[in-house]
């Protein structure tokens, strides 16, 4: 595991170094792909929670914070500095005074307040509301009990005070394109979203729904000398096989690879040179419902973890495009515990644990799964004979991807298999195992353990970052021991890129999300002119 991590880091650093070693070239077109199934939802970045839409949002818009992929943490973007109150709830931002919208108007605190207030519009249910609701008064505003969000206060045009309802790092709240800052006055014009403007490095040119989004360089972007390319064209291409041909045909500059293509690209000496791998913050797991009697016993859940040969499945089915999970928090989490060992594949031990739990002959359960190749029915089918060897029978309940979340959030399952976000903020993620977190709000296995609660409370209260990380590591360790889920793997995101594309960032939150101002193409690109 450590070898793999070291290799990934080395690859990333090598790539970053080689990109830095060359002088960025201005001009040309970056031909990016949005590799997931759906088209862009609309030109309004606030309405969609899909990664697809966030991809163009990173070119067109800006947020209060951005994700620093190299150091794996959020950093200020639209503010120059921030100071926090002693209790960690009031954050005063000194905003940039050089951030211009694409119509040339300077961004002020009013634009941020308006954008965040828009996200809490009670009639719209914007997905970004999940972040802004942590601001004091936001929930009251959403319920119609207040006319404005009390926790958003303009001190002057370039000073903004944000009061949160509890101590939290605002960097984890206001960094995604879902909380993009729109121009307050202009965005209220009826035809604004026909040609939206933002604060990002590229201006909107056109959107052909289902086909492409075209953006061009914003000359007055606040980062001097950036962006480098003249144009960015982003094409939604959900079909992996079609994307593969387009990539090999040099029509696109990047492609996200699935397990099958990962093997093929690694086997090709030329394609192999352009592969970026990142341990993303997603943990693939089988959640077990404690209301289903056998799963209420920790020994049964541990037995499941011992009965499955996870390494074999990762190697054969996932084609090594994953890292073995050794806890909930993934490799790229600051609270990842490198000393933790995975459950060993030990059917004898599993059998013994089942016998101790009162199931010497095993039992049968229903496993809800989607068709997903990396964490769905194909994986379940591989696990079935392994569990059968210890007497546990599985009845597969196939469901569509769009139905799984609702089923799990309602607790309408005995077991499910899913890929859940497990970062980047370890505190937020460990709260999914906090007893007071409702099942619908990510405590999907209704996990309860007073020791974990105590550690999470202490982690949330401390200002000492190292201590917080240590507390969360301990909480993660207890959760692992309690085994509310089968800890399967952490996703290894793989991006293939053309040799002429430079400046890619190893973004562990989602590799497809790239800050386009750092990307550039050298003269060998077919779209260099």
């Amino acid at each position, binding site marked *: 595991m450590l070898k793999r991590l070291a290799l990934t880091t080395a690859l990333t650093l090598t790539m970053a170094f080689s990109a830095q070693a060359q002088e960025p070239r201005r001009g040309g077109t970056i031909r990016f792909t949005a590799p997931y*199934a*759906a*088209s862009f*939802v*609309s030109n*309004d970045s606030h*309405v*969609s*929670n*899909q*990664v697809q839409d966030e991809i163009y949002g990173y070119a067109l818009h800006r947020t209060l914070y951005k994700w620093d992929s190299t150091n794996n943490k959020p950093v200020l973007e639209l503010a120059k500095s921030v100071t926090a109150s002693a209790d960690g709830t009031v954050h005063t931002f000194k905003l940039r005074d050089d951030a211009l919208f694409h119509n040339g108007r300077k961004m002020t605190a009013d634009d941020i307040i308006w954008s965040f207030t828009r996200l809490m519009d*009670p*009639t*719209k*249910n914007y*997905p970004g*509301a*999940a972040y802004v609701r942590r601001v004091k008064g936001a929930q009251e505003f*959403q319920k119609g009990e207040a006319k404005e969000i009390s926790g958003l206060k303009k001190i002057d045009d370039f000073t903004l005070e944000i009061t949160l309802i509890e101590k939290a790092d605002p960097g984890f709240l206001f960094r995604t394109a879902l909380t993009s800052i729109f121009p307050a006055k202009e965005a209220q014009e009826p035809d604004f979203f026909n040609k939206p403007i933002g604060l990002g490095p590229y201006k909107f040119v056109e959107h*052909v*729904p*289902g*086909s*492409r989004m075209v953006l061009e360089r914003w000359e007055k972007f606040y980062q001097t000398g950036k962006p480098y390319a003249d144009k960015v064209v982003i*094409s*939604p*291409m*959900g*079909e992996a*096989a*079609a994307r593969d*041909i*387009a990539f*090999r*045909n040099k*029509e696109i500059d990047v492609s996200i690879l699935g397990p099958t293509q990962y093997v093929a690209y690694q086997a090709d000496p030329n394609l192999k040179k352009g592969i970026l791998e990142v341990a993303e913050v*997603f943990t693939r797991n089988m959640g077990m419902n404690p209301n289903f009697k056998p799963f209420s016993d920790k020994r049964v859940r541990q037995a499941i973890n011992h009965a499955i040969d996870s390494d074999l499945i990762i190697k054969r089915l996932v084609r090594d495009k994953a890292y073995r999970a050794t806890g909930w928090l993934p490799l790229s989490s600051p609270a990842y515990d490198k000393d933790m060992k995975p459950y060993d594949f030990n059917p004898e031990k599993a059998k013994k644990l089942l016998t101790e739990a009162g199931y010497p002959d095993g039992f049968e359960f229903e496993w809800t799964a989607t068709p997903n190749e990396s964490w769905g029915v194909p994986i379940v089918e591989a696990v079935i004979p392994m569990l059968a060897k210890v007497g546990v029978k599985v009845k597969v309940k196939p*469901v*569509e*991807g*769009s*139905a*799984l*979340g*609702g*089923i799990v*959030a309602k607790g309408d399952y005995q077991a499910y298999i*899913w*890929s*859940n*976000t497990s970062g980047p903020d370890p505190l937020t993620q460990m709260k999914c195992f906090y007893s007071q977190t*409702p099942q*619908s*709000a*990510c405590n999907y296995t209704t996990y309860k353990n007073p020791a974990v609660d105590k550690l999470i409370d202490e982690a949330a209260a401390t200002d000492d970052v190292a201590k917080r990380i240590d507390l969360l590591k301990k909480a993660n360790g207890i959760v692992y021991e309690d085994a509310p889920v089968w800890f399967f793997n952490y996703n290894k995101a793989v991006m293939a890129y053309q040799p002429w594309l430079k400046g890619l960032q190893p973004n562990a939150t*989602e590799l497809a999300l790239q800050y386009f101002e750092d990307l550039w193409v050298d003269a060998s690109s077919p779209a260099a002119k």
Partner: protein
Amino acid sequence: MLSYVFRRLLQAIPILLAVAALIFLLFSVIPGSFASSQMADGRTVMDAEAVTRMNQQFGLDQPVATRFVKYIGQLVTLDLGTSFRTRQPVWHLIAERLWPTLQLAFASMLFAIAIGVPLGFLAALRPGSWIDMVSMVAAVSGLSLPKFWLGLMLMYLFALTLGWLPSFGYGDGAMKNLILPSIALGVAPLALLARTTRASVLEIMNADFVRTARSKGMSERRVVQWHLARNALVIVLTTVGLQFGSVIGQAVVVEKLFAWPGLGSLLVDSVSLRDIPVVQGCILVIVLFFLLVNMLVDVLAAIIDPRIRYT
């Protein structure tokens, strides 16, 4: 004729309402909702409160019967509702996707007619010959080829290997972008047209009026032109009509594969995200086209063949 057209249009109304009811009921019973689809990526958390708010916003908290009455009421006023995910009117979304789908459907049918009909004719005029054998084997193959696989093979050959055409995308709607998806979509109707044409020509060749024409000394060219072609055309035209309606529906796979911005890809996206108003709107528009094209075909058939009379 006008009264016939009017009557056919009136007949389309209950069909459309029945389809609308069917889609509505289907999406009321299948698992999953727009709210749950938002969680599909494993990143988004939708707590119970957010789900309730979302269901209220879209009226999904109301009983199915109430929603159905409201939906039919909207439909009667030609209001297809508002998309859950884009918050835009469904008509607007369909309008911006309709032209690319029609482009694709027309191009694929043009390809199918241009090759399929002459091929079927040639095969029928020389039954048992190598042309007949080859064309019919090709027709059967064309009908059996999965569009997804065929599309990939076309991309591989014409884009990656030969470098003649782009492998994906709409471009500016230019011909070079249209060729590969049109072929991928047009091969199945081509095969069907070839078989139908062959069968109908063979049948007509043995008809009494053709024998009479030949016995009266009419030249073979005139027999083919005036009797065979004209009579076979009615059947071919009916097949074209049915196939035109079908290709709009079948475009779903091809549009997704080639990143073609049509109704098909909008429909797929909307189904997976349970954007029910858009799904309903797309299917209704596809059905409407199917009905209209078939009505047009019936009218054209009457013009071509004076024996057909619609009352």
